[in-house]
């Protein structure tokens, strides 16, 4: 049984990662891998789109925290979008929400990145 799907796309200079299915350790490590690849290639603007995220577990959240730390270390900008209510709460409970802007829709988030050029 595999829930691993990480789609990505470049929207102007923003690297968008779509987290579909179950954000467990496998999925989160794959997200981490593509994000680090983007940072290594010089990308600085990253957006995690949670629209297709059905479930998250604590290991997935912890890896997202690792990703946030790595992006901050490299002076990158990270945003989240399309969080369900429970996923938003989980990021609040774990303190992630203090460090990452969250937007309802992907377009709003891309607008934020345009302004922070």
């Amino acid at each position, binding site marked *: 049984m595999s829930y691993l799907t990480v789609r990505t796309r470049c929207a102007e200079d923003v690297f968008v990662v779509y987290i579909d299915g179950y954000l467990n*350790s*496998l999925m989160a490590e794959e997200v981490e891998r593509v994000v680090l690849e983007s940072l290594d290639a010089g990308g600085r603007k990253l957006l995690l789109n949670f629209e297709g995220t059905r479930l998250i*577990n604590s*290991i997935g*959240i912890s890896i997202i*925290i690792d990703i946030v730390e790595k992006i901050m270390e490299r002076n990158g900008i990270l945003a989240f979008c399309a969080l*369900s209510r*429970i996923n938003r709460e*989980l990021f609040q*409970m774990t303190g992630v929400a203090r460090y990452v802007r969250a937007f309802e829709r992907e377009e709003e988030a891309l607008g934020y990145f345009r302004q922070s050029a």
Partner: protein
Amino acid sequence: ELILPIKADSEVVAARVAEEVAAFAAVDADTVDRIKMAIIEACINAFEHSGAESGKVRLRYLLSPEKIELFVQDEGKGFRGGGGGEESKRNRGWGLKLIRELVDDVEISTGDRGTTVRMVKYLGSGPASEGAGSPDPE
């Protein structure tokens, strides 16, 4: 009652059953999501900390008009708090903290014959429903 094999992603099955049980009780969607997340975390804890030779985790879902009670029982060596292996290091000990945020009551009984985590989510005007999700008073 559900007996799960200790196997990657089998906690998703536990969450789906919880969803069905909650839907039967006409529980609102937010509460269902909280119950699902709590049971996922309890299963992951059981998988990781139990060291159970049986390779199984036993779950019980008890539904009453006032509350949903969820029991996650392993037959391992007992709960070791914040210890644990590689997964524990990766999740920074968030599992139990999240469970305490997500449900109204949590009890952990542990011993030589394993560990049982009992989680309660009150429905409607139950005793803790107004403080649902509030941190454990400890």
